């Protein structure tokens, strides 16, 4: 019963985070207008920032390295209750999704995840990265991709260092960044909220929660739009979990390696080598 005891012993952590959550829900959503659009700040974003601040500033002694380790399984397992709610929403929406032609865009948008290679690889080469660039830009660098690069090149290789860099930055600021990015894109009104919802699934539950939140905040809970946005985001995340690593192995990494060979002599060669 060792694991259970560790969790129970961390009760001050749980009580503190309960207080943090209640405070954040009490503050509620704040909308800041930017031109015609607005950026939305949501309770889940404050909760994450306060959680991080509690660890970094250490105002209370019971939030330390040990609680940080304990918190890890709360993220990976805790998100499943949220996923369950999305699944129930999807159950209500699945017939509409299947009958009204949402399956095709849901499946094909998965290939959009390769957009990272087209956008980020040239920039990484301009910055002077060499083989690191392939590790950095072949995928969104979540756990399965890190594992694959580790197996293929080793983590002490340039490719390995690249994937770890994007993994670390993605872990620390990815959730917050996605939240703000989607909030901005939704405000710009160029892409339909349903299309944005389908893009929210990248194979990480908490990132999906943070990126779909600004879309959900545009609609009232219980409306068709709300159910559709949450279902489309949830289904795209489930798809990404299922196909993400296959996409990396069979398309993402080969495409990235090929593009590296084409682009490196043009924009990479001769630049001073940089470390990530």
């Amino acid at each position, binding site marked *: *019963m060792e694991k259970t005891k560790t969790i129970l012993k961390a009760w001050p952590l749980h009580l503190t985070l309960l207080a943090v959550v209640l405070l954040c829900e009490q503050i509620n959503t704040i909308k800041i207008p930017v031109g015609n659009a607005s950026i939305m700040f949501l309770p889940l974003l404050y*909760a994450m920032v306060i959680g991080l601040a509690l660890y970094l500033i250490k105002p209370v002694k019971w939030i330390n390295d040990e609680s940080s380790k304990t918190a890890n399984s709360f993220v990976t397992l805790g998100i499943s*209750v949220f996923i369950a709610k999305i699944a129930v929403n999807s159950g209500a929406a699945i017939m509409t999704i299947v009958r009204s032609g949402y399956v095709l865009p849901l499946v094909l948008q998965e290939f959009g995840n390769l957009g990272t290679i087209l956008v980020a690889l040239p920039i990484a080469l301009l910055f002077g990265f060499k083989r690191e660039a392939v590790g950095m830009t072949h995928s969104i660098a979540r756990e399965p991709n890190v594992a694959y690069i580790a197996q293929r090149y080793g983590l002490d290789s340039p490719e390995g260092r690249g994937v770890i860099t994007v993994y*670390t930055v993605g872990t620390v600021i990815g959730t917050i960044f996605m939240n703000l990015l989607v909030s901005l894109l939704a405000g710009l009104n160029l892409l339909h909220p349903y299309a944005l919802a389908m893009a929210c699934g990248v194979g990480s539950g908490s990132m999906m929660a943070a990126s779909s939140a600004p879309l959900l905040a545009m609609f009232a809970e219980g409306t068709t739009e709300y159910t559709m946005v949450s279902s489309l985001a949830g289904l795209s995340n489930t798809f990404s979990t299922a196909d993400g690593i296959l996409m990396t192995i069979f398309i993402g990494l080969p495409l990235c390696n090929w593009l590296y060979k084409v682009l490196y002599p043009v924009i990479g060669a001769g630049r001073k080598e940089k470390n990530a």
Partner: protein
Amino acid sequence: MKKRLTLDEFLEYTLIMLIIAAIALVGNWVSSKFTASFVDSIPGILILLGIALVGTTLAKVIPLKIPAIIWITVIGILLAVEGSPTAAYVTEAVGKIGLLPLATPVLAYAGVNIGKDWAEFKKISWRGILVTLCVMIGTFVGSAVIANIILYAQGIV
């Protein structure tokens, strides 16, 4: 490939999900500005907890490489899809729990959790950070543009 689930492991994830669900339940009440009935929202959170637990357990005991999120999605859909005998009750009960309040506690723990990566994060150059932001923008915008084009071509939006 044989998977074994120990009692300790089972109790561990049950306890973790129970704590998250409990925090989310109170958070949901605060989020509704205390207008929702606290007691009425209990069955909904128990159903979600049940789905999450069954899905996670299936992923651990069934000797196939199917992640928990897929089991959870399938169970949730089956319970709520029209025509399913449980659909009316499940949709009604779960409807009393807001979606975003379920994510808030998880992200509070995520904040504490990423704290330990902070030292590594600080060592990364601004170039590494900018490339990461481009990776995220590329993935997200790539998917959204494809989805939008197809939705538009099909005349849905």
